[in-house]
């Protein structure tokens, strides 16, 4: 599926693990249930995992050194648990790899995603990147700390989002 990074479409080197098949070589995203299998894989390639909204990010703690990507998901755009998961991964677990939003987020949530630590967004085939780019550039200021190292605007709580 197409991928958005910093407001523009980007190539996606990752593939999901095929059901009922060995994980195989390459950059593969496995479901949480197959994490151990992924970590034990001997084929070359990077490993990613799909964290469902109800899962505790801390369940990944031991696996983090072996993970290059964690996908969080929005079953519907109104379900905002992934925001907290992403922040927890960055802030408490110190995860520095890619955090990918999957499911059905809206362009209007793009800056929220980024400020919670999401780096890429998976969008449906044929998505017009323009609204995403627009939202990415929309605001010059934010009013609260985020997990990003944003520059202070010089006054009170304000930050300049990256």
């Amino acid at each position, binding site marked *: 599926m197409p991928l958005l990074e910093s407001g523009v479409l980007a190539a996606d080197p990752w593939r999901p693990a095929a059901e009922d098949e060995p994980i195989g070589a390459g950059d593969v995203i496995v479901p949480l249930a197959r994490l151990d299998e992924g970590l034990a894989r001997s084929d070359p390639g990077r490993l990613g995992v799909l964290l469902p909204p109800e899962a505790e990010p801390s369940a990944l703690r031991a696996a983090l050194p072996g993970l290059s990507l964690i996908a969080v998901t929005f079953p519907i755009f109104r379900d*905002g648990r992934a925001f907290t998961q992403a922040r927890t991964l960055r802030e408490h677990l110190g995860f520095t790899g890619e955090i990918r939003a999957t499911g059905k987020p809206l362009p209007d949530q793009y800056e929220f995603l980024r400020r919670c630590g999401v780096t890429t967004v998976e969008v449906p085939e044929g998505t017009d990147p323009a609204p995403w780019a627009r939202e990415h550039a929309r605001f010059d200021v934010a009013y609260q700390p985020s997990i990003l190292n944003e520059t202070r605007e010089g006054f009170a709580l304000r930050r300049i989002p990256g």
Partner: protein
Amino acid sequence: MSDTATRPLPVGHYTYDQVDHDFLRARVEQFRDQVARRISGELSEDEFKPLRLMNGLYHQLHAYMLRVAVPYGTMDARQVRMLAHIARTYDRDYGHFTTRQNIQFNWIRLEDTPEILEQLASVEMHAIQTSGNCIRNVTSDEFAGAAADELVDPRVHAEILRQWSTLHPEFTFLPRKFKIAISGSPHDRVAARFHDIGVVAKPGPDGAVRFEVFVGGGMGRTPIVGVRIHDHLPEEDLLAYLEAILRVYNAYGRRDNIYKARIKILVQALGLDAFREKVEAEFAAMDRARYRLTPETVAAIRARFGTPDLIAPADAPAKLAADRAANPHFDRWARTNTHPHRAPGFICVAVSVKPAGGIPGDATSHQIDALADIAERFSFDELRVTHMQNIVFGHVRQDELLALWHALGEAGLATPNLGLIGDIIACPGLDYCALANARSIPIAQKISARFADPTLQEQIGRIHVNISGCINACGHHHAGHIGILGVDKKGEEFFQITLGGSAEDDAAIGQIIGPALPEDATVDAVARLIETYLTLRQEGERFLDTYRRLGQAPFKDSVYATA
């Protein structure tokens, strides 16, 4: 904008600088874009809904309703005049003050909303987060900065919470709406225990501000009195601690059933101790330096609040006493509709937006303009909307109170019923709301007309009557000394009566006294409850006190015993 450099800052609320103005303009453009995408069909109604809700735009029974935020209820005259302009230009010439200290316009066209928001932005106002599953407009004490009993002016921290919660990246798609109230007085005028989070500011032993934090209170289908989760939170941890509470809520709050999605249900399900443990664990793990609310930040925000120069002539109290002695009508109004001020020679004024037989909280554009004029003339250009749907002028000179009362009288706003039986809180009900079982407004009007006589009202004394058109409890009937709830009985509007609720320090949830009654019988029942109280009360007792002393029986009998 740049004129703030030369003009004194408005009293009572934060003043925007260029960055704040630019932000709001970007927000208006974003909404204009969203409306255009909706009209073109690019956004489905399902996708558009949460976006318009984030801008305070509801779809009601007959039209769109726009709810404009009034942060901590405070506005200057320029802002108030803008509301009158919007009522005149885009609505049916009136606005409705809400229990969240906001104002809503009930007859708005979708196409007009970007323009309305643009005009609001020109006076530093917006509708951001007045609906939707996000942190709503933060409410505060209507006598903030003025009340004689206040320990800390809560508005600076209310503003900090407003800014912090504005487009918060993590907490804008919560399981359900989230309401925060903050007070700085030991007398709870903000219903702190009936909010998702209630914050009470107080000076700590070292003089620095500390906060008492309540969590998990709320009305609605499952009314719950909030519990104290922190007793003495240091100022610098205010944001970190609130973030921790909201994170726990965002991660664990139920999303499968909107009636069980508020934080109160989570707190109940986990138990306070387990909930607190989770919050403390989150708080302990956080990068606290990042979330630290520094004294410099507090000072920088405080510096953008104008402060009134509270100097009154020495004979102001004597002049007021003489004016009151000379005019019994004025005297009565001054008795019911004022509140002690901390500064000598000053007084706080509460204006009832509830004339006998009127619609609670509705004001015409003419009245809204009159309120702006009065604020300008008598109260440092500032007024506040109260959670009782009334208006407060915070700082009025005692020697000018009579002139203010005359000005109110000319606008039809001098009803002497503050805190009395005519000061009814009612939700919009079936006249506007798609969820309603019954109309709340006509029954409020009938009760108010029944007790129109100001002498009788004063005799009855302090009482809260609250009316909701359905179990969602927007009229806070659970917290009414007398609560009235609209129910549907085979397609007919009936009303259930509860007694003994309170939203103040003695917070309690009202108890149902018996089967629901039709509208007119309910009005009669209220009259009988009041008669019973007047017969049985002891010296100095409010309705609530008599009820609590005697219990339900005599009241219940008065309503249901067949003569």
